[in-house]
């Protein structure tokens, strides 16, 4: 593959971006619990999302067309088409989450549901770390390191499962225990709908990870590794959604 030479560069880039994201997440939490500036939280979320979109999801690849005209049946050209298809799907999916965000702003305004902010930070950290390992696994597969890919994807899967269970089993149960049920009012409705829809996407992402892990182990992606890239991009997309949902549910505004 063409990118073999910059192996270590790509890996260290992933580490740097992860550090940036971790610092920004900490800053976000600090801003929220001290002076709760909504514009600042929005800016931090946008910066985080931009970092993930560019460095983890490689949005710039859409502009890179390796194949020239008349070669429409080559794997490279089809990969370019598949990338466009996946990104179009993500744009479409963004509208669902955008709609949920509109619902939350309309129903709750500048108040937020009563939730455990530390637990929120914890699950967010888990998802963030999983994204780091996903990026690592994808980069390694791109360079033909099957074992590295399998290990990192397995870690991603475990962390992702941890996030899913953390939200659905711990977080939901805690909320219901505190008296916030889906039918208790707008805060409960918005919280369960938003986390539920996100959890559904995490769940589908886990299925995709399992598929690429199993097929990757059989050596299916040693040459043609677009499925790995697609699963990784989808996984990071789920992360980007959480970058916005997390402050919207846990940080912004005052308690309802």
């Amino acid at each position, binding site marked *: 593959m063409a990118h073999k030479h910059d192996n270590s560069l790509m890996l260290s880039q992933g580490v740097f971006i992860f550090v940036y994201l971790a610092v920004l997440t900490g800053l976000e939490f600090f801003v929220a619990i001290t002076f709760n500036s909504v514009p600042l939280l929005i800016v931090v979320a946008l910066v985080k999302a931009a970092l993930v979109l560019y460095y983890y999801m490689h949005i710039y690849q859409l502009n890179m067309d390796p194949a020239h005209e*008349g070669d429409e049946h080559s794997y490279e050209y089809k990969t370019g088409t598949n990338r466009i298809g996946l990104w179009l799907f993500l744009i*479409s999916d963004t509208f669902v989450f955008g709609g949920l965000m509109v619902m939350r702003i309309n*129903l709750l305004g500048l108040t937020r549901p009563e939730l455990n902010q530390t637990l929120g930070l914890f699950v967010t950290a888990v998802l963030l770390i999983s994204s780091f390992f996903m990026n690592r696994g994808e980069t390694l597969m791109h360079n033909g390191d099957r074992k590295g890919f399998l290990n990192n994807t397995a870690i991603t899967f475990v962390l992702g499962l941890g996030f899913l269970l953390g939200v659905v089993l711990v977080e939901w149960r805690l909320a219901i225990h505190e008296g916030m049920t889906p039918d208790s009012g*707008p805060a409960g409705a918005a919280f*369960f709908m938003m986390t539920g829809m996100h959890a559904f996407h995490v769940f589908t992402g886990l299925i995709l990870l399992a598929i690429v892990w199993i097929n990757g182990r059989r050596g299916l992606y040693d040459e043609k590794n677009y499925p790995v890239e697609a699963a990784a991009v989808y996984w990071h997309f789920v992360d980007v959604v959480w970058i916005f949902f997390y402050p919207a549910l846990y940080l912004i505004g005052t308690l309802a």
Partner: protein
Amino acid sequence: MRKTNPVGSGFLLLLLGGAVGYGIGLGIDLLMSGTLNFSGGVASAFALLLAVASFFFGLYGYRGITRGLVWQVVGMLLGAFFVTGMRALMGSEEIFGTFFFSEPAWVLGALIGVVSFLFGVGALDDWMKWVRGIDTPEHHEDIPGWEKYFYVSYDHKVIGIQYTVTALFLIAVGGTFAMIFRTELAASQLQFLTVTFRLFNQTGPQLYNTLMSLHGILMIISILLGVSGIINYVVPLLLGAQDMAFPRMNAFAYWVAVPASVLMLMSLVLGGFDTGWTGYPPLSARAPVGMQMFFLGVFTAGWSSILGSLNVIATVLRMRAKGMVAMRMPIFVWAAVATSIIALTATQLIGLSFQLVMFQRLFGMGFFDASKGGNPVLFQHLFWFYSHPAVYVFVLPGLGVISELLPVFVRKPLFGYRWIAMSSLGIALVGFTVWAHHMFTSGMNEYLRVPFMYSTLLVAVPTGVKFFSWVATLWGGKIETPTPMLFVLGAIVVFLLGGLTGPPNAAIALDLHLHDTYFIVGHFHDTIFGGFVFPFFAAIYYWFPKATGRRMSEFWGKMHFWLMTPSFLVLTFGMMRVGLLGMRRRIVDYDPALGLDFSHLILTISAYLIGLSVLIFFINFFHSMKNGEKAEGNLWSSRSPEWQVPSPMPAHNYPVPFEVVGEPYDYGLPGSKYVEFIAPDRQTHHEEEAVIHGA
């Protein structure tokens, strides 16, 4: 097996299956309630499902669509029984509901039914193989003959025809519903849909509401499928592509619409729903189970729309012929892109809004329930964010067809190609900013009204651009009027009327008066007929020879046009008139003192005449498939690439690839050419060159 006439055995089994299903349903009802309920929903639901499945069994045997439908029914029942069992185990008080199963059981069952259909019909076969790491060939060979249309095919032309025929079927069903309730409206007072009338657990007026709501949504779905049909068939041909970018997703997008249509029809028998197709809460939050089937049906059909448009955009971006730069693409391709941008993004919002109401009903989540801190107006915002741009999804391809066909029949270049191309995108983008004009009377913030009024009026600008271009194209041309051109001209006239009656509704002061009257009904029937139905018929008459190698009868085509157009104009003008005189929308009855009885009688008669004209079309359509006059050449003397090769098109489209060498619509300019086929010797030369460059 082929000894008997398949259609005949299909209909025979339809009756048989219907009767058996009705019997089973009656039996269940008898067991549950101890009384025989002949007009009950359960009996009707079983009758409907078994009748549809048996019809295809007789037609086609247990494969393809039949297998899908059987799996859908089985999946639905299994899902429903699963929920019922769970509820029984958990000690719920309401294990069964009005329609045998409880509402959650029906919803989960319906969802599982849709997934089962897709597995059963085989739309997921290749993907499942990929998941297991098995490679599949890029193209599968289709079975020959008509049978391939009831089977999963990855050929965009087969899928385009599947879409179109499904759309025509739904138009027929939706139109029949319209004629039923139009008959009731022919005179004031209730005549046959009376309070004592009972069908599917609904009284006459309830049934009126259900039919009116279903007429709306079935027509919308059929339009979406019709749009996909033309786009699917034509766009890859215009681009010179072998197929769409993602053939499997293309097939998936079509097949997911089939169980969606079944769900939509099931809503009729499961208590119906009385909200209109808009499904506003709080009414939709307490309508019968049919409401949920409607929500799920729209949700599922939405996936068809989203994935289909995703495919179109990717195809146009990646699969164009050599030399086809953006400004040399056929205008219909521009329209398809514009329409796909809307369908790709906005469709999610109608899905979300309906999903939220579904969850409100199932889990008591109070999104739109004011008593739980919810906001009903929020639903309208989410809903119209799709449902207004949706009308541009309907009309943009239609307007594209007009611009595409007009130069062919006036033998003159299309006036202002760039402006037309950009106006499609302009309509699509402005269309995103106008949704709240549906809500001037809803009680939303008053300061929002004025910006939405202006943005709505702004839509008239790019639309006006199209009209000026059409008029300028017609000006001084050698106008020929075969049937497709008649429909193009009819479309221009009717869409103009729809367009001119739009701005009055956009003006707040007038809209407060016109809201919810028949004026609106007249207005939007004009826009949809002008923007979609007329161009759709034009497109069918125009591309029918390409698909079949035969042409439809000119005489009956002209009969269709000359019967439909005047009746339609009478219908919509009449609708606007009674609206201005105080006739309200969506109601089963009106005050005789309004003095509108005679007008309504005229409206009903024109509606019947439209129905008759469409019937003529149907007979012409199916008759010409086998018996039409042969037309294998460039029937319309078009410059477009698909007409430069003999009809019908072979399986993988162009045997020889072409190259774009000129402007698409320079009709009548001597020596100009749009496409040139790359001669085989040049082709190999190209390949050699490519090899050299590649090395």
